[in-house]
């Protein structure tokens, strides 16, 4: 096809061709190239995201044996204190006072001391709930305290306190009073509070034991 010889006609045709080319180009860019490029950008972004996730995932997966071992050790440490050494006071038939009295009286008996009275100092309403909380900031332990009254000399008291404290590094004498007895100079009126940690949820230790067993199998 030849262009017309008339310059004005030829310019018109060339302009129309130019406009048509621009139009086709615009349509091709808008409906072909642009979505294709956008899709490629999105794919590339997803690839970068996946590569990052896989890198982090690999690191996390590599940590499984290390964390499993460390968790096992931590659980063993807690369970040893709670279940083996019983240094976290555990109830007997739901009764903490029985266990606490038994501990104090056995140490006093060994020193030939006679305990006058052992009473609970914390009201029953403050006693633990049954469920294990999932809140990581909630305390796992709460104090349980008894008040012990007896009459003895200061040296005997030191022996009794030493026996209790050396037996359990988690118990604490939180209050102690010694008043002289003018009638019996060798024996004073003694009263002291002993505090033990107890599980906030009594089933917590059972849960930890189950977790420990399951982790040990995986190791």
């Amino acid at each position, binding site marked *: 096809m030849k262009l017309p*010889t008339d310059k004005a006609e030829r310019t018109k045709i060339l302009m129309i061709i130019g406009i048509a080319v621009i139009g086709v180009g615009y349509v091709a860019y808008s409906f072909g*190239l642009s979505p*294709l*490029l956008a899709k*490629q950008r999105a*794919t*590339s972004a*997803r*690839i970068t995201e*996946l*590569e990052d996730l*896989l890198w*982090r*995932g690999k690191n*996390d*997966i590599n*940590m*499984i044996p290390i*964390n*499993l071992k*460390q*968790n096992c050790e*931590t*659980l063993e*440490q*807690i369970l040893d*204190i709670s279940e083996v050494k019983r240094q*976290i006071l555990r109830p007997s038939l739901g009764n903490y006072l029985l266990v606490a009295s038994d501990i104090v009286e056995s140490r006093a008996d060994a020193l030939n001391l006679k305990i006058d009275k052992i009473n609970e*100092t*914390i009201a029953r309403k*403050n006693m633990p709930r049954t469920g294990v909380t999932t809140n*990581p900031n909630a*305390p*796992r*332990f*709460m*104090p349980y*305290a008894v008040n012990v009254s007896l009459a003895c000399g*200061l*040296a005997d008291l*030191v*022996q009794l*306190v*030493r026996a209790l*404290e*050396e037996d359990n*590094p*988690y*118990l*604490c*004498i*939180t*209050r*102690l*009073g*010694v*008043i*002289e007895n003018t009638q019996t100079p060798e024996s004073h009126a003694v009263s002291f509070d002993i*505090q033990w*940690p107890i599980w906030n949820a009594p089933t917590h230790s059972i849960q930890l034991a189950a977790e420990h067993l399951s982790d040990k199998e995986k190791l």
Partner: protein
Amino acid sequence: MSLSVDLITPEERRSASAINVKSLSRIGAIILPTLIIFAMGHLALKGMLTSSRLRVLESRWESAEPKQKQSLKLSKRLHYNMQTATELDAWKTSRIEWHQQLRAVMETAPTSIQATMLVIAANRNAAAPASPPTRKFTLNLEGKTSGERAMLFVESFKHRLETHPATTGIVEAVAVANYGADISTSAGEFDRVFRIECQYRKRPEETTQ
């Protein structure tokens, strides 16, 4: 005078240059579509390769994700159990071994002094206990002494108590909180009563918390 005769009409005129609009348009008409086709082909190929890589990565992530979730769960459990162990440890570090402190009192008390009352108290309210506990104790010792050098006995007792190895580092301050004449009916002229107060440092120490 020069004379130029132009016998070619404008329509018949041709450019002598090798590069002219017509030749450029012809070259362009071949090269441009070729370039566009190559670019489109390149884009399509790149798109196919990217999509294939994406599929590979998606499938790898699909198999790794459950394991990673398991690892995160384990890490959370470990953190929780370590917090439990730390809380338990605070129960140990917040206490004072009172048998050592009582022995220190017995060892440092001069024979000229008669202790009448000893009280150890924690400043924490037992009705609203916290875990892990932070404890701050005070030991109060009341006693009697006699003689012209009574004040000296009390001061000496205080000094020996605060320098005893069992109290060093854990006692914040030892002070004679009260000293005066014994006003009881049976008291003599030189009989004195006193009270020594020992303030213990807060436990566990701030740095170990």
